[in-house]
């Protein structure tokens, strides 16, 4: 009897062992396949960027000579000459211009979107439903349809060839996406602390400043980062509104350098391309947690 049980257990054990082994083998095959696909796709995705950085240190004669990314004779002449540009200004000027657009835009966005999201998430008022619907509609409204009259409006205001058209609309909570994202964040935050503060006599803007903003900080960092990226990458806005070279941001300056030197000076173009993506790359790697969280929470364009 005892033997019988023992052998049955043994058989069960062996059976379980076999199943477990088969399972492990399947898992191994599955994991290998997954890693294989991911590595291959990752290489295809990233190699162009690696090549770009490597090629920016090559000489012009070497750029199209092979598919490798390591230069035979590394040179920084692309950077030196590219930085000088064919204009009276260096690339430093164009970075400074970009900075002058990005910073007011980020500050304006954060302040206006926080206030508006707070209004939507914490108050009841006449017309709230209609206004929230308008927010969603703005989110889906293609810019292409408002661009021409906006241009005419800024022309009448005398703002053409200045940075104002590039950041003022954002300072009026013009990027509906960010408002929407912050409203979603706020709705997930319990109101207990705010209500306690109100009972203690704080008014609503004190509550906003001292309770809501600290709780919202991670979301606000996400907002800043996305606005930074999108503004760095924006090309059509500056193309339409800026005409003097001394006001060009890096995106326009790069286009200008293509037009003036591309026929032969490839490494200058590549070197300046690398420089213009560097700020975005560095910010992304330093703060990628906020990107992934922001994009997963609200869902993002891009």
């Amino acid at each position, binding site marked *: 009897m005892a033997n019988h049980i023992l052998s049955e257990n043994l058989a069960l054990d062996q059976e379980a062992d076999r199943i477990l082994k088969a399972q492990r083998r399947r898992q191994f095959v599955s994991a290998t396949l*997954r890693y294989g696909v991911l590595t291959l796709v990752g290489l295809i995705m990233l190699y162009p*960027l690696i090549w770009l950085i490597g090629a920016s240190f090559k000489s012009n004669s070497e750029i199209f000579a092979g598919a490798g990314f390591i230069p035979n004779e590394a040179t920084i002449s692309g950077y030196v000459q590219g930085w000088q540009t064919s204009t009276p200004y260096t690339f430093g000027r164009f970075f400074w211009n970009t900075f002058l657009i990005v910073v007011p835009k980020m500050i304006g966005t954060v302040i206006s979107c926080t206030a508006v999201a707070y209004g939507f998430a914490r108050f009841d008022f006449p017309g709230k439903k209609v206004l929230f619907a308008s927010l969603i509609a703005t989110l889906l409204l293609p810019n292409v349809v408002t661009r021409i009259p906006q241009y005419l409006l800024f022309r009448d205001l005398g703002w053409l060839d200045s940075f104002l058209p590039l950041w003022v609309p954002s300072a009026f*909570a013009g990027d509906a996406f960010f408002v929407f994202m912050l409203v979603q964040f706020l709705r997930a935050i319990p109101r207990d602390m*705010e209500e306690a503060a109100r009972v203690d006599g704080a008014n609503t803007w004190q509550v906003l400043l001292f309770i809501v903003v600290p709780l919202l900080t991670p979301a606000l960092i996400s907002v800043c980062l996305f606005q930074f990226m999108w503004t760095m990458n924006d090309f059509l806005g500056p193309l339409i509104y800026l005409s003097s070279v001394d006001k060009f941001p890096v995106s326009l300056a790069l286009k200008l350098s293509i037009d003036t030197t591309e026929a032969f000076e490839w490494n200058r173009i590549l070197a300046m391309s690398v420089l213009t993506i560097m700020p975005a790359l560095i910010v992304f790697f330093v703060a990628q947690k906020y990107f992934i969280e922001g994009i997963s929470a609200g869902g993002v364009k891009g």
Partner: protein
Amino acid sequence: MSGDNRFLGLFYLSPYIIGLLVFTALPFAASFYLSFTDYNLMSSPVFTGLDNYWKLFTGDRTFRKSLWVTLVYVFTTVPLKLAFALFIAVILNYKLKFINFFRTAFYVPSILGGSIAIAVMWRYLFADVGIVNMGLATLGFEPVNWFGDPTNALFTITLLRLWQFGSAMVIFLAALQSIDKSLYEAASIDGAGKFATFWHITMPLITPVIFFNLIMQMVQAFQEFNGPYIITQGGPLKSTYLLPLYIYEEAFRRFDMGYASAIAWVLFVIIMVLTLIAFWSSRHWVYYAGDKRS
């Protein structure tokens, strides 16, 4: 908050309301009006009724070509990009080491993708003697004339979009990771295979995210500008001359603001109709947890 002035919320909304009126609603209405006018910036707009639209649909071959190219571009790019993003997200959604590393690697192109620098890079990659053709030669293929051939040129622009699948993928991945694991256990006890589990459990649960990505990607794809402007300048033979390029050139090169507004409105109506179709159809295929079917 109760007890407050019932207009207090509107005070906090005031930047938005002003911005909405001045920078969105007013331009929106103005653009509709302008589309019925002849306006070259020098004199004031002259109302010409349906002339612009008549010309667009009967006499303007560039418009017809541009519209066709835009539709081909959107209807190839968006499904390919979503399918690829979902495919990679499903592979990533597994107890893998380095999942964060891969997620980051796949997301980087989305961060940079819209920039001019990347469009410049694309020109070099797909040049006749660029590394893409070198790679093809190594594999034994003939070099491809990426920018000279109309079909290839549009495909090259499409590839630039596909390369930026990361943001859609991150959203898919977040949705996949939020699915309750007990559902999979239940399915496996019931003997469901992998494919059945994916089709009957995973897919329904992520339809809201598919819907969201679909709308966002579509609205953006219809407005693609940087890629074709920098890489191909709309050519060859207008094969990459997407409507946003045409609108830009009519408005800001030829200063034909009325005509450009009419094109913009046609594009807007197309986007709106497709969005409405998506919303309308969503009730048949988008599953929201908590509604009566659950």
